[in-house]
Every structure is written in C-alpha cells, then in structure tokens.
C-alpha cells in the first residue's frame, strides 16, 4: 500500500490518514475538502509525472507531488 497521495497509482482510491498541521500550503487543500478520513482517488497524472488530478468529495482538483507527498493515506 502506498504511503502518501503522491504515490497512489492512477485509478485507485484511498482514505486520507493524516496531514501535518500548521502548514499553510495544506490549509487550502483542507478547505478544498481533503481532511483526514476523506476518500480520495487519483484520476490521472500529467505525462511528466505531475501535476496529478484527484477526485475528492466529487470535485476534481490538481496538485503537485510536493503537496501530495504530505498527505498520508491508508487503504480504502
């Protein structure tokens, strides 16, 4: 099982396990719906590895590996 959202393969989903607190770059992701306990899935990855497109709460978002690597996940 991959450890972070950055490693989650395209097409699979997982549950957000933990996110470090107090990082303002993650605050916005939380406000966009990615909080511990939320189900996320990876829709696609850009050809050169990033950004990744994810689906959370039915909304589609893109982010880079740098941010995604902060988001610890566990099996859905």
């Amino acid at each position, binding site marked *: 099982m991959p450890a972070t959202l950055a490693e989650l393969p395209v097409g699979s989903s997982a549950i957000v396990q933990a996110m470090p607190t107090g990082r303002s770059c993650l605050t*916005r992701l939380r406000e966009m719906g990615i909080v511990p306990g939320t189900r996320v899935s990876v829709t696609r990855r850009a050809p050169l590895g990033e950004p990744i497109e994810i689906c959370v709460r039915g909304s589609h978002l893109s982010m880079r590996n740098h941010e995604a690597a902060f988001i610890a996940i566990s099996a859905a």
Partner: protein
Amino acid sequence: MSAAAPETPLIAIVGNPNSGKTTLFNLLTGLKQKVANYPGVTVEKKIGECYSQHGKKLRLIDLPGAYSLNARSPDEAVLRDVLLGRRPETPRPDRVVCVLDSANFERNLYMAGQVLELGLPTILVLNMVDVAEQREWRIDAIKLSEILGIPVVKTNAISGQGLIELKLALSREDISPPKWQNAALPEGVKAALEHSRDEMRQAGVIHTRSSLLEPLYLLSDHDPTHYGIADTQIARIHELRSRMETDFPGWEDALVAERYRRIEELCAQVLKRPDQEIETITTKLDRILLHPVLGFVNLLLVLGLLFFLIFKVAEGPMGWIEAGFGQFGAWVEGLMSPGDFRDLIVNGVVPGVSGVVIFLPQILILFFFIGIMEDTGYMSRLAFIMDWAMSKVGLNGKSFLPFLSSYACAIPGVMAARTIDSPKDRLITILIAPLASCSARLPVYSLLIGVLFPVGEVGAFVQAGIMLGLYSLGTLGAFFFAWVFNKFVMKGSASPMILEMPSYKMPALKSILLQVWQRARMFLVRAGTIILGISILIWAASTYPKTAGDDSAKQMEHSFAGRAGKLIEPAIAPLGYDWKIGIGLIGSFAAREVFNSTMSVVYAVESGDDDNLAPLRDKLAAERRPDGRLVYTPLVCISLLVFYVFAMQCVSTIAIVKRETGSWKWAMFQLGYMTGTAYLLSLLIFQIGSALGY
C-alpha cells in the same frame, strides 16, 4: 452608484470560482454595471443595478470568487472585508446571494457555510443544475431550505432557468438569518479569540460589535500582502496568531475538519449521488483533451488558432484602423491652416492615438478567446498540461497563457495575468511578459536583419534563423528572470499549485462579450491617456527648437530629440551606436516600431513604410561615420538587435503594468532591469566583438 437612494438594498453575490457567479450577476444586471478597482488593490469592484420581480430597485455587488473566507490573496481579503463590513468605501451588504456549483455541491458548501455563519440574510443559489443532473447528483432543495430556514433556488445561468425564482427571492425582505450553527470552537480557542477580540477592539482594528468571526479570520489571514489590515496592526495580529499556534497547535486545521464534519451531516440529508462516478461529457472529453499525446496536439491546435486569430485575422481591422486614422489626419490637414497646432494634431496626436487604438483588435480577440477558454473550463486543462514546464522556472501553469499572449503584445498579456490567483506568480508573470518578442519588435528585427545580411548574400533561411534566434533569446531571458525573481527577489513562501478542474460547459457568450468590452474600455482609457501625453511630448521634442528651411534631417538634428541623441552618445558609444541611433532609441520608448520611422526622418529617407524597408535598409547599410568606417557593421547590428530583445521600450506597457500592479514601483523596476540587461548585453557583445577584431 451614489445616485441610488440610500434605502436601495445592497446585495452581495458570492461564490467559489467557476460557480457561474459572474454569469448570474451579468444576467441580472446586464449593462447596468459599474466596474472600478477597490482602492489600493487591483481587485475589480463590480456594482450593478437590477429590479426584483416586484419592480423594486436593488443594488448588486459581485464579490471576487473564493474558496474560503480565510484569505490567501487580495481577492479573498476583499471578499472577507466587504462581508465583515471592514471596507470604508463599501457598505456591509444587507443580504447575500451565495452561488453554489451544484456539480461540486459538497466542496462549495465549505465557503457557503462560512458565509452562513456570518448571520446575514442569505439566498442559496444552486447553479449549474444541468451539470449536476448529468452526474446524477440530486439535491433536495426543499429540504435544504427547510433545514437552513432560507430560500434555496435552482438555476442554470446559461439557459436562464430559475432566474424568475431568483428574482422572486430577491424581492423578499423577510429573509431570516440562516439556521446554521457556527462551527464549534474548543473552549480554549474560544477564550483566546475573545481575548484577541478585546485587544483588537482597543487597538481599533475591529469595530465594537464584532462577533468572534472577525478576529478569527484576521488571525488566520494567509494573504501574503495582508490586504485590508493596516501595517501598524499587522505586527500585533502576528503576535496573537503565533500565541494561538503555540497554545493550540493546528487549531485552524481542526476548525476545517469540524466544518466538513457538519457539511457531511448536511449532505447525508439533502444530497443523493451515485457511489461510482458516472461517465459524463467532462470525463469523456478529458480522456482526449488531457491525453498525453492527443491532449498536447490539441493544445497546439488551440494555440495555433489563437495565433492565427491574433496575427492574421486581426490584421484586417488593424489595417482599417490605421487607414482610418491616416484619412482623419489628412482631413484635418486639409481643414486647418498650416502651423504648429496643425502639425501637433497631424503628426503628434493622431499617430499617437492611432498607435494605441491599433492594438484594439488583438486585445478584443485575445480577451474573447481567454473568456471562452475560462468559461468552458479548458483553461484549467491548459494550465494542467503546461504546469510541469512552468514549474521549472518557479511559475505555475496559469502563467502560460498570459506569457504566450505577450508574443502578440505585452499589454493584453499583462492584463491577462489577472487570471493567476497567486499574487507572487502574477507579479513575476507581469514582470517577464514584455521579454516575449512582441509584434512591435518585428519591423525593427526585419530592418536590422536586412542590413546585417543583405538579400542575395545569404538565403532567406539564414534570415529566418536569426529571427528565430531572437525570439528564443527573449524567451530564454524571460525564463531566466522568472527563475531569478522567484529565487532571489521575491522570497516568501511559494504558494502551492492547487487547480480546480471544473466540468466542461457551454460558454455564456453575452457575459463574455460584456467582460471583453469592460477590459477594452479600460485599456483605451488608461493606456490612451498616457500614450497621448507621451506622443505629444515626443512630437514636441522633435519639432522644437525650429530650424529655418524644410530639411527634416537638419530639423531632427537641431531639435531637442537630436540634442538628446547627442547627449546620450557617450553612454551608447561603448555599445557601438552613434547619436543618430540614439534618436531612434529615444523614439522607441514610445513604441519600438517607431525606430523605423524615426530613422527614416533622421536619414531623410522618403519611405519609412514597414512594407517597403528597402530604401531605409540600403541607406543604413551604406551609412558611414565621419572617419569613413561603416556605422552598421555586423557587430553593431547584433548589438542593436540584442538591445531590442531585452530593452523595455513601450510606454503603453509601462502604463498598464503600473495599473495592474497598483504602483509605479514595479513598473520602474521592470523598466530598470530590462533596459539594464539590454545595455549590459549589448555592451559585452560590442566590446568583446571589437576586441576580437570583428
């Protein structure tokens, strides 16, 4: 809108980006709107008028789109400040229309929940119901209205569905504050916020009747510019914030989680959606438009179309504008008696204004195109595809289109940077945009390449190769400086690239045309007034003091411009230029292509026409210095070409940069770094080249 009676209610329209909020605003107000900037910041303030279904006059304010009241950009800070009644020039709205994208209902509820917490009478609008239906998301509006105790209206801003229901809701004056409990705060956090509120009240940061939400949002302000908070108060707010962080680590994050917990509870009651995401037009289109190969091919086609429209289709109207102004000039010339005043109109004002208006077709096309791309949702895909490349120089995918547009003209490019939400990325994009070789450099490049390699000696391929080299040089320079600014000039936290991928939808053409018109008008008024002044100055500089006789070359030498050329000769001689080139450089600061017409006057060549450069080119190629050496040696030509690649020589762009960044500081910084780079590089080329014996 001072004409409106004070009792006319002010209704704020708020919502996430891509919720169709502005389309709805445009639909309600039509042409009856006034666009300005909020004082001190480049955030558009749009106020319009409309009538409720019962004929009552209403004032509507379209607030910037945002994902949260926890501001991260000046746009979001404006939203927060208006809703909290913190802006002196904008009264606190009486009611709020909160627009939600039904197809992203759960995520959109986050900011909607924050707005409901404020306790203002609110109407919820579930927009884009058609897209939600495609996804088989069913929202029970009646139940939602019951739970929240406020009107809930379903609309489709593109077809106009639900507009009458919305207008009916707008007529209601009995809307009660929403039944939405404020997010529960842990006792300690609550006490700390109460303490902060007392302090802020005493310091006069907030008004006396403020709820806990005001200190809460001020303490969690993530806008790097801290817009809306006075400098003297920022230090104190920072102190309070770090104390909160030490005492209650992660309190903000816990608050977000708490809000989403309550949203999940609400969604369980009112939202039904399939367990698996079903195929929609969006998922199907994305499989092609974001395909590793097809997506890129499509992107090239889209950009190819854009360039075709900007360079080829715009050519016609640009020619008509030029011809129209030419005829107008001739008509005035015939009408007035000869004299300085006629000369001012015919040779100063008319060409000056024409030089600005001529860009209008390109600007209209570009903004229309951008409007379509944004409204359909393709813009996010373009940013997705280009993000990797842009990230290498520290920018993000959203900077790509504004930069690309600058190859046509930096003015629309700089204005298009408004679509970049990160203030830092936006500023860097504006600063590097004029390094893209714009169409005004093309005539200068053609002339000098022609002097460098007279036709016949080398093939057209070499000429094209040099042209391509100049474009590449500008592009590399832009990327280099983006990297430098990112690394050294504008430190501070890199804002993360978070890009929403909205559902594709049909563009709302009327709404887009309205915005195109607003942008175009802004360009004409702002750039127009400055360039008019400058063109009068340049005209005066080459007209006075006067010489006897009709020799225009003599007149030029004797004029202020000629003297200025001689004055700067010591500074530009190390670059290989003489005072005559100096006059051309000075003239170019009005617009680069002026170099050609100025040089025609300087050398008294009959035709300075862009279509026929041959007489001027031959004259330049034959020109010799007093000691008999050629003026335009290959080395001088290269030095001059490089100068034109890098130098900031366009007053219109300077004026727009001043406007878009809100201060002269960045406009002057840009002028300095670009022209400084141009000078240094040309100096190095000429000096090293000369030393090597070229």
